[in-house]
């Protein structure tokens, strides 16, 4: 222990990074991933992902050739896996912005190790999410009708339709997330450029680094831009999934028509997003040996958030049931009884087991800090959240008002292909990201290394200047 750590402990703070971590080590550990040959593990991971992407190509081609009938969708289940996947991916896409923007505004400095990761994940998840509404329409070649393009017919989209709100909400979210991610990447791209040995690397990274020299003015502009983008993104975190939930909440279908959906969906989105970040982080941490930068402290904090949000969705599930009973609406009641006991009972109980029961293990510190357990739970939550969307969409639709029209949805191989394929797309993009871009925000992590913050109070105070705490406080 160095002398510097004594006052930290005294004021109730803990280190976010091990003591031996310094700026050089950060630059080296993060940048070298992009500079050296990829390890075998990466190639295996990339190969499998690429195969998944191939499945997507084949599935979507077949879908476009045959029509939506290639899927299992029917009447009454006009939507099934397509929109389930859409909502699932959108939900996953929430963690990135939440970590980047909201935790940034709340000065949660532990976020620095995970934010880049989470943001990249957001971008790719939103791409996957955008895929599904685009391919789920019957005539995808006319999808541009949803855009408010001036035309000679004076024909505008229907601004009353939640699907249109989706178009705006998701595309806005995607744009802002992309900008946010890219702006945050610029200083690190410059670092990689500066370390580059070959001209190609210099040119490529240099182009994307936009001439970053790290001057005082650059940093000032950067900080301003990042703050503004964070402020812009924060409401989006809440709005996007609220808007997505309006697809259901504004309808007249029992099981959909409910006011609890916006907060319930946002909580679920954060829940699933964190689970996916966790899954990916644990893999990257093992493969690239980044344990120094993604510490158990990070993982544990994330597990706590999952415990909270998991309990929130559990509350929402039970409240839905209560309201269905309390409303006295027979259609509503039937939908909920049917969820738990009808033909899709297994989906419902999968959902409850994965989403409500499994995160309760995180009450125990042993579980919270065990890599295998948290990995398993993060996978379960991913599955559970997929089932949640499936339950909401398919079990509500398959038995609605008129029993004469009740039906049953079964997926086809193309349904499965599109879903597996979207995972392939996601993981392929992710593989390319960790291979070629700094997967941890180096300059942000450096800012929490002791001694990195300017100070004129002498060595014993330099870690905790007012206004820009280099360390996470327990209270925060």
């Amino acid at each position, binding site marked *: 222990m160095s002398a510097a750590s004594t006052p930290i402990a005294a004021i109730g703070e803990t280190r976010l990074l091990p003591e031996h971590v310094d700026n050089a080590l950060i630059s080296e550990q993060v940048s070298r991933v992009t500079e050296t040959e990829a390890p075998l593990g990466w190639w295996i991971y990339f190969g499998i992902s690429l195969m998944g992407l191939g499945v997507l190509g084949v599935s979507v081609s077949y879908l476009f050739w*045959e029509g*939506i*009938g290639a899927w299992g969708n029917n*009447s009454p289940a006009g*939507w099934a896996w397509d929109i389930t996947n859409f909502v699932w991916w959108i939900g996953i896409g929430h963690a990135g912005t939440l970590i980047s923007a909201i935790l940034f505004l709340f000065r949660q400095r532990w976020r620095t190790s995970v934010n880049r990761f989470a943001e990249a994940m957001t971008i790719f998840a939103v791409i996957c999410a955008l895929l599904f509404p685009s391919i789920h329409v019957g005539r995808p070649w006319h999808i541009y009708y949803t855009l408010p393009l001036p035309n000679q017919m004076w024909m505008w989209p229907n601004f009353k339709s939640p699907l249109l709100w989706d178009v705006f909400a998701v595309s806005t979210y995607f744009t802002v997330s992309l900008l946010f991610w890219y702006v945050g990447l610029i200083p690190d791209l410059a670092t990689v450029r500066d370390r580059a040995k070959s001209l190609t690397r210099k040119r490529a990274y240099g182009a994307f680094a936009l001439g970053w020299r790290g001057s005082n003015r650059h940093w000032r502009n950067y900080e301003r831009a990042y703050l503004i983008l964070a402020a812009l993104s924060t409401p989006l975190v809440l709005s996007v999934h609220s808007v997505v939930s309006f697809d259901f909440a504004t*309808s007249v279908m029992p099981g959909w028509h409910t006011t609890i959906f916006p907060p319930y969906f946002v909580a679920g989105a954060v829940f699933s997003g964190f689970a996916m970040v966790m899954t990916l982080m644990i893999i990257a941490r093992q493969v690239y040996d980044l344990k120094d930068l993604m510490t158990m402290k990070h993982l544990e904090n994330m597990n706590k958030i999952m415990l909270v949000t998991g309990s929130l969705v559990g509350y929402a599930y039970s409240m839905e049931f209560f309201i269905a009973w309390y409303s006295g609406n027979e*259609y509503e009641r039937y939908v909920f009884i049917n969820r738990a006991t009808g033909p899709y009972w297994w989906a419902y109980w999968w959902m409850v087991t994965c989403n409500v029961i499994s995160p309760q293990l995180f009450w125990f510190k042993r579980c919270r800090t065990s890599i295998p357990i948290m990995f398993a739970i993060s996978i379960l939550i991913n599955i559970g959240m997929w089932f949640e969307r499936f339950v909401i969409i398919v079990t509500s639709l398959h038995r609605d008002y008129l029993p*004469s029209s009740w039906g049953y949805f079964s997926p086809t191989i193309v349904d499965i292909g599109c879903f597996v394929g979207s995972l392939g797309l996601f993981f392929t993009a992710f593989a390319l990201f960790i291979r070629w871009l700094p997967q941890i925000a180096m300059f942000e992590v450096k800012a929490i290394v002791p001694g990195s913050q300017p100070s004129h109070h002498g060595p014993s105070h330099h870690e905790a200047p007012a206004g820009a705490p280099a360390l996470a406080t327990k209270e925060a």
Partner: protein
Amino acid sequence: MNKEKPSRSGSKIFWRSLEEKAQATSTEVGSDVVKATIGLGELNRLNRRNFLTLSGAIGTLAGIEGCIRRPAEKILPYSQTPADVNPGEALHYATVLRRREESVGILATCYEGRPTKLEGNPDHPTSQGGTDLLLQAEILELYDPDRARTPSKGGIEKSYAAFDAMLDDELGRLLGKRGAGLRILSQPTNSPSFMRLRQRVMQRFPEARFHNYAPVNDDNVRAGTSAAFGRPLEVLPRFDQAKVVLALDSDFLMTETGAVQAARQFGAKRHLDSAAGEMNRLYAVEPSLSVTGSNADHRLRLKASAIGEYLKGLAAELAAAGVPIPGLDAAVRGAKVEGIPETWLKAVAKELASHRGESLVVVGSRQPAAVHGLAHAINRALGNSGRTVSYTAPADAGARPSLEDIKALTADMVAGKVDTLIILGGNPVYDAPADLGFGEALNKVNISLAVTSHRNETADRTDWHLPRAHELESWGDQLSRAGRYAIQQPLIAALFDSRSDLDVLAALAASEQRGQALVRETAGERGIAEELAWQHLVQKGADERDAAQIFGGLPIQAGSLAQVLSAPAGGGEGLEAVFLTDNKLFDGRYTNNTWLLELPDPMTRITWDNAALLSPAGAKGLGVNNGDMVRVSAGDASVEMAAWIQPGMADGTVGLPLGWGRRKGGSNFHGAGFDVYPLRKSDAADIVQNVTVEKIRGSYSLSQTQDHDSMEGRPLAVDATLQEYRETPNFGQFASPDMSAGPLWQTQDYSQGQQWGMVIDLNGCIGCSACAVACQAENNVPVVGKEQVAKGREMHWLRLDRYYVGEDENEPEVAYQPIGCQHCEEAPCENVCPVNATSHSPEGLNDIAYNRCIGTRYCMNNCPYKVRRFNFLNFNLDIPETRQMQHNPSVTVRFRGVIEKCSYCVQRIQGARIVASREGREIADGDVVAACQQACPTGAIAFGNINDPNSAVSAKREVDRNYGLLSDVGTRPRTRFLGKIRNPNPEMKG
């Protein structure tokens, strides 16, 4: 042609191949069109504006041809425009079609010489504007691409010249023998021309014989009148005169002869404009739940063989109630009625006795002659004869009963007495009684010829086959049972080189006349010789009056009837099978008809298949579930088929729907259903005793459009008893109240202009499904196939929901509810469409712009009625050319990826609007008739302008029992229902 010449229009010649260039380019044809529209005179005075218009049009035409690949087509204008034919404008022609033993007047809608839709002829008494399921589907039969196109010998196509040479040869040989060995098997006929030509053939070949056979026939009906009155007669019930109807194994609303007329009359007695109204009461006793039974106020499930005993028991009770049946006291005494509830004897007898002259006992054609005979005697004793039932002589008075005739013919064939056999229509190899071995017997015939529309099972076994012309493309004439003489005129030149029965007979009779001349000569003999009178007859479709002598009160020949009655009834303790005339395929002649194949059966809701129908207890006893395979055996014959549990079946009965499992002559029915004809013997053609049903390995996947039979206690198809209705006239509103709160946004003002609305009287809906097929025919609704139905992707714009009501699965009450788009004033579908593809018209229609639809299916999800259909695949791909001819040109054929649904027949509204505006008036009530409304035989559907206080639909909307389906969701549906009223007899309780 004009290789060097520049095009006349002065534009460049566009071509894609040398062949094309060598031909006159169609660009020129296009420019001709433009010229024609502008007028040549005007061309000479080209001003700047005209020049620009012209060159723009030419440029566009040329440009389009350059861009889009399409096959070269010749556009040939009429050199002489036919009178009255305007492209896009429908013309209606009267004709007549045969349904079972009855002829039904038809009005056919034709576009540019193509009939596209059939409606009932309001001037014809057996239709009165109504149709049934099969008549609606008949148009598809005409355009069936699987119809045979050329004569053939042994399956090898031959020319008519070859055929005629063979026939001349053969006839020459037969002439020498005075026709000995010549046999002609036709279907039972009601055509005066057929009978006249038959006479001519018999004159030429005195030793020849005519036979007739139909697998579903009225043999028993005529045998019944023979037993009762001593002569075969047609029975003409008058349901519109009967306050109490007792139907014994009679599906008079659906499958019996004269069903269209019966449904009209029955419906008229169930119209209730207010709670003070009166309605009839229907008792049904039957082994299998039929459409008629499902409409009964009281229904008794009883084995078919026990129905005679029940009627005897009832007769005895009637005598006790003061209605003795003269001469039959002894015969009806001691009926075996154990197990039959007391009330079904006493209360029904009391009811009948108190409705003398206004009650009616009808017996289905499945029941033996004795039951028919006794029913006639009861009707006479009740004073119903001449009031609610009358009789006429059959049109073809000398015809032998079908079954007897085919037996005689087959026996002669086996004995080698038949030299030449000509089969005119029908499919005896498939549907003749199995024990006769008609197919094998054909081998013993020297030359056999089948004249059938398709190369069916029979044509497959005969030496020669000749394509038979469809009734809609050939001349003919028919007499209704009451003797209404009607002309069957062709609506289109024969699609394929085919011949009608009359043409074949004329050839046999060595007559040079064909088609119209044959019919005209018959008409001349009937006193319609003048050109004007003939034209009037053809135009009207039928004579002004019924020609047959109607008998009211014929004396009962009690002695012989008592003798028939004293014969022991066949029923035993064993399991018995009843052959059911299929609700959709009839006897199997419609088995290639995709509309009918895909239509859910009115009772089972199964599409594309039939199944052995078992009672719930029977199925439980066998350990059989829906779709399990069973082996049904009768004697030495057995059939393996899927089983289906049908609520309301009599225990100890298995129902076997006829007409399925065909093998030859079509491409649509392969794998559809199971053929039960092998179980049908000549001595047990209707009811088979002592059959066994055993479960065998395997199960079969049956596709249903509706797999949930219960309303789950929801107020959907709302019903009440007459008593309840009188106590609470607005019971519909109680069950399904209209929402009083408005939506959050400003509502549309619908108080102005024409506002279209529909009212469906559930009391009139008998569940026949004619409306569903009519909608399909009118709106180019595609057929999707069994697999897609199983996935829940059927496209029917109008569907018929069928619910079972009540706890007892053996005694279900049935509620039907036709559901098309409800045209909600606050339509949930419209709000959610992101591209505004579906929106409300100012006239209150929920419209879809197919071109705008991108297919998000959000509207379909948000429709509480689930009436919106999505083209999951391209269901209209590769439609055969002939099939395309049926398409209604006023309705878009939809591509994959778009939503579609009931449009309230908007094309008919627009058509009526054009006519009205041309005549300078508003659309009057009755100008717009929706396809479903038009087809409905009971008139249960009203449609029109709800802002017109005098319209029929407004009057219906005022009826107290009206309600909106799921009104509490806030949709404000434009379609409203009138609650169903059941009329149970209070004395029948307990």
